[in-house]
């Protein structure tokens, strides 16, 4: 995702840590031993995913725009996304991400390839690399996402 401004805010980091079930106080309590030893609050390893909140193209309902989830009916409109599933996610951390950082993200496309699968039919994979820079232009996190578009829904095994 390309994002012009992604401020790493304390409340957002706390909510994100709660959502992944991580009670480590380094993510919400500035007086904790962890935060003191880190020189302040930091963000969990996967936090850059929350940059979607600051992405103009993020998957969310918008005022005045039909949303493809249910309302009165089982779907409110055309599916606004590609229907891709997340196949792989890789992060490289150049330094810890800190509350107070203000990030900019730039997106590069990588490879695409396809293969056949018993569960999902033809699978088309694509690689998307996002670089997150701080205000000083220093690279903080590199995220590499591999998405897959399946021919049919993938249902549980057995």
């Amino acid at each position, binding site marked *: 995702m390309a994002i012009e401004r992604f401020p790493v805010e304390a409340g957002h980091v706390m909510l994100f840590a709660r959502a992944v079930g*991580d009670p480590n106080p380094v993510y919400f309590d500035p007086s904790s031993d962890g935060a003191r030893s880190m020189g302040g609050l930091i963000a969990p390893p996967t936090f850059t995913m929350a940059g979607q909140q600051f992405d103009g193209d993020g998957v969310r309902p918008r005022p005045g725009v039909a949303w493809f989830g249910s309302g009165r009916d089982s779907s409110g409109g055309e599916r606004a996304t590609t229907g891709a599933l997340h196949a792989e996610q890789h992060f490289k951390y150049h330094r810890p991400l800190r509350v107070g950082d203000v990030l900019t993200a730039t997106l590069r496309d990588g490879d695409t390839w396809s293969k056949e699968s018993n569960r999902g039919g033809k699978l088309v994979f694509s690689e998307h690399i996002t670089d997150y820079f701080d205000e000083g232009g220093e690279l903080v996190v590199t995220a590499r996402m591999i998405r897959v578009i399946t021919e049919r829904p993938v249902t549980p095994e057995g």
Partner: protein
Amino acid sequence: MALRASELKVGDSKTMLVADNLSRTQIVMYAGASGDYNPIHSDERYTVEVAGYPSVFAHGMLTMGATGRLLTDWLGDGRVTDFGVRFVNQVWPGDTLTSTATIEAIRSEGDVMMADLSIVTVNQKDQPVVSGTASARLDP
């Protein structure tokens, strides 16, 4: 809090329960915090009737985030340098997830000691849901 290279050896592992009877509400919490509001994660009616899945299911990144807790709890805050996973099976409401990380190598990178790990999270049927690798800086 960080681990010392001298206290670790290849084959050491740690296991942690990272989600117990995963609730739809926790999946909604993740949608709200991450900003990924795709209704296949929270809207049962849409997901069953339109998308064709048996139920809503968790974001892969919820599972990766829960798995990351094991890495940072074990290896220390701000120590992880690389973390990558494949999403092998979907995670459904009611699933219980257990993560295991194993030291695969201990090496030096210049003056810095590093650990390379494999990591896997399985559901209550012992099926892997995410599987991958991580690296972290150690104290000498």
